[in-house]
């Protein structure tokens, strides 16, 4: 059904193929979070990989920074309908984290765990084969606190609420356990190209 009098502003042809349906492009980097920005101290920062309640490996900041680095460039998409093009992220891929821990992905799903008690669920397949990292740098600079620094998950092919800020751990789970927003009406997977925004989207 067309809205009377609405014509809209379409992306340029060059951008149209890069913009998922229902999104618009912004030069800004909007900030969204459920509460105050946590201030995470690098001196006590730790990242823990676990399988259910069982820790598999854990790194302090210095050890984490010494892991193999990955750079990813591309576009990110927020469920609130903004997309940002040509972003550059640097961090440690989930593949390299698992390799450093000496394990393969122990189950089919994971929960990303944050310092502000946020969590979000991601299928393991979306984290592997170079599709995701724990990012510590954005556009060449240490990741700012309001954007999730010192470290956030980056799963750029899913809506950005899956890229949990202020990350402290990744817990593999036997089942697909809903995280913070997933318990509050948002989609379990969140593929922007399929507009998987809310729980009743296919």
């Amino acid at each position, binding site marked *: 059904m067309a809205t009377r009098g609405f014509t*809209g502003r379409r992306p340029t042809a060059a951008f149209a193929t890069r913009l998922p349906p229902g999104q618009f492009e912004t030069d800004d980097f909007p900030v969204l979070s459920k509460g*105050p920005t946590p201030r995470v101290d690098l001196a006590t920062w730790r990242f823990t990989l676990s399988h259910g309640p069982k820790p598999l490996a854990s790194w302090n900041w210095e050890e984490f920074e010494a892991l193999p680095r990955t750079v990813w460039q591309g576009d990110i998409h927020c469920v609130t309908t903004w997309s940002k093009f040509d972003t550059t992220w640097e961090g440690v891929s989930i593949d390299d984290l698992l390799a450093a821990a000496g394990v393969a992905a122990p189950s089919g799903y994971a929960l990303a765990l944050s310092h502000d008690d946020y969590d979000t669920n991601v299928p393991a397949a979306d984290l592997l084969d170079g599709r995701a990292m724990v990012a510590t740098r954005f556009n060449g600079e240490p990741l700012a606190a309001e954007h999730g620094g010192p470290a956030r998950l980056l799963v750029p092919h899913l809506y950005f609420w899956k890229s949990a800020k202020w990350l402290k751990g990744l817990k593999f789970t036997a089942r697909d356990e809903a995280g*913070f927003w997933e318990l509050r009406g948002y989609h379990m997977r969140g593929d922007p190209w399929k507009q998987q925004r809310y729980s009743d989207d296919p």
Partner: protein
Amino acid sequence: MVRVAPLTPRIVSVFLKAPVGAPIAGQHLVVRLTAPDGYAAQRSYSIASSPAADAIELVIEKFEDGEVSPFFHEVVQPGDAIEVRGPLGGHFVWRAEDGGPLLLVAGGSGVAPLMAMVRAWRDAASPTPLLLLLSARGWDDLAFRDELIALQARAPLFSFIAATTREPARRSGDLGHRFDSTALQAALRHWGYAPQHAYVCGANRFVEAMATGLLEAGVAASRIRTERYGGAG
């Protein structure tokens, strides 16, 4: 079916009668506009009306370069049909049974979801103290100003402090400058309650400053909920 009324020089209220469920105060609707060729744009707008209200009131600030907000300021006509989805949102919400003391901090059009909470509090005759801090550029930019002043006059448990960042204060107790950390702490001291729930809504810079100020004032992070408006409209 839609009706539009000016709220401030830059903000309109959009009243909708939509076949959607009753909202919880703080929730938003997704509004979807579709062009004749099928191209569609969608945005989320907070609901300002009471959960008990007949019509849903959305608060839409005009962004000059925006794609959707100018439509509601310049194009839409009474009676037009608008596609909506929702109400949505399960975190930045307050129900009367959540109680308080309840602290609401709003910048500009960020007052919308907090206005729904004020009205829900009023309609439920909630026994909890409520303090609303509202910041805007000038006296006429204070959305819902007259309704809030009238409520303050008759509801002893409702406190309302306005901050005008580009004009002098008009009322005793208001501020003629922004809420900084000092002003925030003074307001909380004067109120005399420790907030059980604090909701902060507005542009990111405002929310960041206010949330930090609340932490400095001793409010636990777990009691502070934020909603940050992007600059896209």
